[in-house]
């Protein structure tokens, strides 16, 4: 084995990942700010008003990235959960549970901004169209994942059981999506598709892309912060947590906390 070979599995141990996550967080905070500030500037000042919707359409720069992130986070979460199940790595399941609340938050944000956008555009806070409904069902799936994890006290069983639920959800998501789509279609067609040029102004597209990256970086920051708490909580009886975190405290406090 050559000495230059990197041991990729080193950081799959919570003990090694904890300080690394701590070092990564400030960088991702900087990245979040770097994407958010120009993203908001583009959204509010550079992007032209829509010829039909006027200024009201600008909520799209929050709504669409939030909706994208809500779906993306579910996929990442399920992938982590699956890895935790297959390789039995504790850190993967911790990452899955750290991502779930942020995913649910983005789903809720997408629904909320969708309602605010829908009122001036369609004249209704809520319509039972395919995308709104499947986003709502996605929120239910997130809530199921979080509540199953909360209901089981033993962390290992909680992680494995919710991993199965996440994977069953992944198999079901396309089925749910297409059922709901067939069931009702009223929403305007997708504005951005992979194989077609975007039908919107370039500055609008830039703003949306910047906001998406901003949300993405924010997700990483929050997930890392949360996973660090999770690591400390689950590993609180180990020596490294004791010596790192409670160094300099009296043995009485250690016993209380541990």
């Amino acid at each position, binding site marked *: 084995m050559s000495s230059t070979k990197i041991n990729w599995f080193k950081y799959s141990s919570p003990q090694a990942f904890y300080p690394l996550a701590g070092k990564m967080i400030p960088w991702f905070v900087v990245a979040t700010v770097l994407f958010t500030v120009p993203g908001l500037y583009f959204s509010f000042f550079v992007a032209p008003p829509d010829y039909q919707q006027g200024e009201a359409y600008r909520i799209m720069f929050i709504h669409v990235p939030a909706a994208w992130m809500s779906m993306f986070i579910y996929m990442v979460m399920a992938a982590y959960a699956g890895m935790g199940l297959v390789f039995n790595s504790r850190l993967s399941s911790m990452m899955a549970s750290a991502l779930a609340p942020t995913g649910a938050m983005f789903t809720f944000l997408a629904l909320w901004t969708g309602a605010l956008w829908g009122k001036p555009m369609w004249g209704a806070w809520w319509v039972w169209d395919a995308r709104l409904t499947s986003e709502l*069902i996605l929120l*239910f*799936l997130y*809530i*199921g994942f979080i*509540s*199953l994890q909360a*209901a*089981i006290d033993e962390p*290992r*069983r909680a992680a*494995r*059981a919710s991993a*199965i*639920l996440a*994977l*069953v*959800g992944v*198999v*079901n998501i396309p*089925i*749910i999506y297409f*059922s*709901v789509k*067939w*069931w009702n279609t009223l929403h305007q067609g997708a504005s951005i598709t992979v194989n077609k040029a975007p039908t919107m102004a370039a500055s609008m597209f830039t703003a949306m892309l910047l906001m998406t990256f901003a949300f993405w970086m924010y997700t990483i920051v929050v997930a890392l912060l949360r996973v660090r708490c999770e690591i400390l909580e689950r590993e609180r009886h180990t020596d490294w947590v004791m010596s790192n975190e409670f160094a300099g405290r009296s043995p009485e406090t250690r016993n209380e906390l541990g």
Partner: protein
Amino acid sequence: MSSLVATLRCVVMRDLTLAMRRRADVLATLFFFVIVVSLFPLGVGPEMATLRIIGPGVVWVAALLASMLALERMFAADYGDGTLEQMLITPQPLAVLVLGKALAHWLVSGLPLVLMAPLLGIQYGLPAQGLWILMLSLLLGTPVLSLVGAIGAALTLGVRGGGVLVSLLVLPLTIPVLIFGAGAVDASLSGLGAQAHLSLLGAFLLGALILAPWATSAALRISME
């Protein structure tokens, strides 16, 4: 192959015998279904035109809720007295045992709903053709509810508040069945024909038959660790 069929038969017969000894449970699910369906006209109003429109959906939602109600019992008793542990260490594949239990669960809690549905459909003023399609869609759809529900029941085994939790986990996953189940009747009554909906329900049933027992046995192993 024949030994697998024998195993399946054995599990189904055992669960059916147990269910017949506690008939009140079976009847409770059925009456819950009837009561929920009968409550809707009291809430919505007795206009036949409205009832005819919401009828298939109401029957389907009630069937969904009734099957959630019975899910908790699928593994609970066996978990309590240690039978489930014995099942886990038998040489027969666990997925076959799970399939047997889901099948028995459907025979006890799903099939009565299918047979009762036309009567409730008449209360909602559905024409004869709609009644047949309603029965057929329930016949294809309710086994899916039992199979997918088995995953939820296995995951929440011995968990506090399991009864409510299992509905929270399973109901979102059963939405496609509800859409196409109730949609089949609507499509048939509006003259479009129910074949597409029924074919999709059949596809869901085949998919669930293959994947659900497998996922359920993985969930059971996790719960019994």
